[in-house]
């Protein structure tokens, strides 16, 4: 498939039988960005980096859509895996004094309070509450409520059983509701 960028075509490799077009990627981009933000604990710079790596994987064929699931489910799984890889690499760099040797740039700081000043209060409270949940619960609730996916689809993206996903979903929902509404009440 060819993507027109800066006047030149970009070839996106694909597996036979699968049709992942540039317009599909573009249509999914806002949802992917939201999911990447969630996977990176709302660190915008990190989310951009993850999404860029995902597109790079798609471009050079390291991530190939085989058409077994929906494009959205597949892309979300790639984003989640890429975010985990990045987190592991960052953890290793933080653990070892390698950063000094490699002259790695400092990790992008969390969004400044000024940048969030105009953000809505509900959204901020939701973010703060979500950060108190376990990663699995946070991811499940995001996929179900934010991305409007079913629990089965969310389980496929997270690579867990539907039963386990259901358990995380119900526990996460109860805890989130408690954090959001009981405290404020």
């Amino acid at each position, binding site marked *: 498939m060819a993507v027109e960028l800066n006047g030149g075509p970009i070839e996106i490799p694909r597996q036979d039988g699968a049709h992942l077009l540039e317009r599909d990627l573009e249509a999914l981009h806002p949802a992917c960005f*939201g999911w990447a933000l969630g996977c990176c604990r709302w660190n915008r710079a990190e989310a*951009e980096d993850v999404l*860029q790596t995902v597109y790079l994987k798609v471009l050079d064929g390291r991530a190939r859509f085989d058409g077994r699931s929906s494009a959205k489910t597949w892309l979300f799984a790639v984003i989640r895996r890429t975010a985990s890889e990045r987190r592991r690499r960052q953890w290793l760099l933080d653990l070892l004094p390698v950063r000094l040797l490699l002259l790695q740039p400092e990790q992008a700081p969390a969004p400044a309070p000024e940048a969030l000043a105009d953000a809505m209060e509900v*959204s901020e409270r939701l973010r703060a509450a979500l950060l108190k949940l376990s990663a699995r619960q946070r991811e499940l609730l995001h996929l179900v*409520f934010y991305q409007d996916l079913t629990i089965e689809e969310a389980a496929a993206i997270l690579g867990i059983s539907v039963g386990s996903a259901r358990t995380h979903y119900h526990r996460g929902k109860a805890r989130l509701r408690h954090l959001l509404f009981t405290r404020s009440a």
Partner: protein
Amino acid sequence: MNSQDEDRDLREAFALQRREEEKQVTKFHRLLTLAWTLSQGRGRTSLVPVILAASVLVALGLVIGQVLQHSEPVAPPGTGPTAYLAGWTEPTAFLLRTPGYDFVSTLPAFGRAVPALDPGAPPLPLHTPTQQERS
């Protein structure tokens, strides 16, 4: 009241968050262009580490080859470490040698002297039956 109604509060909160975040989404084409640029750069430079690694391996092979060629001459068969290892016995082997071990481990044969039980004693003479014994 179904689950949709039950979760209306959460759905509304997430919808607010989605609307807010959608306003700040980084442009798709910006990220794709950056990824494409990286992809092109990677394609050009991907051979460099491979060539470097191959050069290091070849150099290492040459050094090892030279070292082996100029190492000590190979010992003739039977005198080298293999022969030493083949002839090696454990230091506690003598503990397994019970009295009469030589006697038991030797097959008896007609017309041959039995091994001496006392290694220091002279060998026993062969017993030849006399004419009287034969009759």
